């Protein structure tokens, strides 16, 4: 219905000049207002994070008594020293890294294989299998907590890296399959047919054609999933108990002391340390990441 109205538009040869003029004539009040509004909203999004960083440089006393909006009266790295004393931040970062890597390898490899079977090889029940994977996108992760806890307990998998990696990868798999399938659609049939005529079987085609062509999609899938896996709290909190396996989100909880008393400035320093790796990756690769997030929902 929407597409039907498209032909009604005038031919695309409309000269660009009128567009320019029209823009110039637009009331400036409207433009200024929307600019101010955008600025305000961006401040609301970014200021709390800037405040987080500034507070991590404040002295404890300054935080407890001062005006929260004021700049710190003096800068100190004390909080960072205390942050590293209180918790084992390096250990937490390493654990998060291991879990993120492990889950990503599974998500990429298995997602690509499933998409290859469904989209390229094809089989009788492919529509049914595709539907089966769709369930994982809609269903909330909480449904798996109790069963997995019980199952892990019976096969001694509680409190291991795998106990986090399995559900993280499992629940991310559908989206990965979906992204790979929609990319595989763009690989021309003829490529495969030519390779088949040359005697390449499904395994060689996968290794020599599909895999090398998918590099961009792999980057997208890894970037998008890394955000969610790196930050996962619920699976780690349910399945991991020992200090040595705690990922960053769990490690941060150690900063809540006895009686719920929190050393805020040290905690903020710890938060700053732990969000830095992902933040850096995001700022460096934000173009690719933004593209990935956009394509995740709009390709459908």
């Amino acid at each position, binding site marked *: 219905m929407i597409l039907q109205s498209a032909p009604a538009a005038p031919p695309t040869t409309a000269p660009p000049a009128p567009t320019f003029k029209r823009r110039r004539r637009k009331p400036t009040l409207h433009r200024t207002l929307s600019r101010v509004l955008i600025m305000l909203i961006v401040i609301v999004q970014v200021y709390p994070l800037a405040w987080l960083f500034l507070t991590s440089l404040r002295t404890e006393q300054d935080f407890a008594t001062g005006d929260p909006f004021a700049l710190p009266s003096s800068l100190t790295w004390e909080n960072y020293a205390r942050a590293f004393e209180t918790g084992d931040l390096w250990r937490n970062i390493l654990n998060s890294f291991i879990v993120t890597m492990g889950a990503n390898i599974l998500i990429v490899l298995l997602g690509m294989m499933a998409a290859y079977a469904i989209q390229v090889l*094809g089989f009788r029940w492919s529509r049914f299998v595709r539907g089966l994977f769709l369930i994982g996108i809609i269903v*909330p992760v909480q449904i798996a*907590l109790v069963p997995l806890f*019980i199952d892990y307990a019976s096969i001694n998998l509680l409190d291991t890296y795998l106990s986090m990696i399995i559900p993280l990868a499992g629940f991310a*798999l559908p989206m990965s399959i979906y992204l790979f399938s929609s990319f595989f659609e763009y690989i021309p049939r003829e490529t495969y047919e030519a390779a088949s005529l040359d005697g390449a*079987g499904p395994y060689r085609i996968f290794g020599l054609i599909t895999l090398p062509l998918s590099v961009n999609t792999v980057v997208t899938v890894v970037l998008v999933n890394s955000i969610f896996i790196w930050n996962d709290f619920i699976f780690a909190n349910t399945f991991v108990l020992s200090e040595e396996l705690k990922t960053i989100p769990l490690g941060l909880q150690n900063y809540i002391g006895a009686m719920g008393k*929190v050393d805020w400035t040290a905690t903020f320093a710890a938060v700053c340390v732990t969000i830095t790796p992902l933040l850096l990756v995001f700022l460096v690769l934000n173009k690719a990441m933004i593209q990935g997030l956009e394509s995740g929902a709009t390709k459908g």
Partner: protein
Amino acid sequence: MLPNRSKTSVLVFLLPPLLLYCAAVLFPILQSLFLSFFSWNGISEMEFVGFANYVRMLTADDIFWRSFFNALLYLAICLVLQLGGALVVASLLTSLRRGRELIKTLYLLPAVISTVAIAFLFVPIYSIEPVGLLNQLLHWIGLGNLERAWLSDVNTVLAAVSAPEGWRFTGLYMLIIYAALIAVPKELEEAAVLDGASKWTLFTKIRFPYIRPVWITTTIMATTYGLRGFDIPYLMTNGGPGQSSELLTTYMYKTAFTSTDFGYASTISVFIVIECLVAVGLILFLLKRKADA
């Protein structure tokens, strides 16, 4: 289909992912369904109780209903902030000529930060002693009488734990909607403007109908994410004070891992799944029907 593929090759590629998916997602769903008909604390013998858990949940559990309505309000606040905010910012962004990329990046920043960090960040923002950002801001703009300890006031705590979740993901949905908006053919918009269409008509008659498929996807995403919201309320207030910020998810979690009532917790999680499926069905029904009208 690839010409010289064999049944074995299909299985080789399909079986490993299917196994992981079954182990992590499909089998646990069935297991939850199964457990929801039992009473079990994880140690003693499992006892089959039929529909007793469901009857107890729907007719005799006030906390369940309280959590259910809390979860709906939580969802409503998230949807307004995420989808409403996303649509406004995406629309404003299309009228901007420079700095779009920068604003997109800045706007998305909170999505990169973990929920634990966000919970830690917002507790002092809401605090009254020492005075937090929110109370200080209210004081400055002359609304000092609204100052309060947002997280211990039973009237405000639910909104206070919902807002950070909305804040966190609004950038994500903005990106998606923005990508759809700039795909609206320019000729279409220009023709409408030449015909004298106002900004508002342009939006309601041209732009919005054009992005409706994407809007449906984002609404489904935001709704299912909102219904599974857990981390921030759990970390900030643990459902309190009393049950005033208890959601179905936090209630389920506590039932399972604090009261170790695995059977009843499974019943609640089955309800959450049904709730999600109903919500998705409802969105498709309402938004698709409007599109056909």
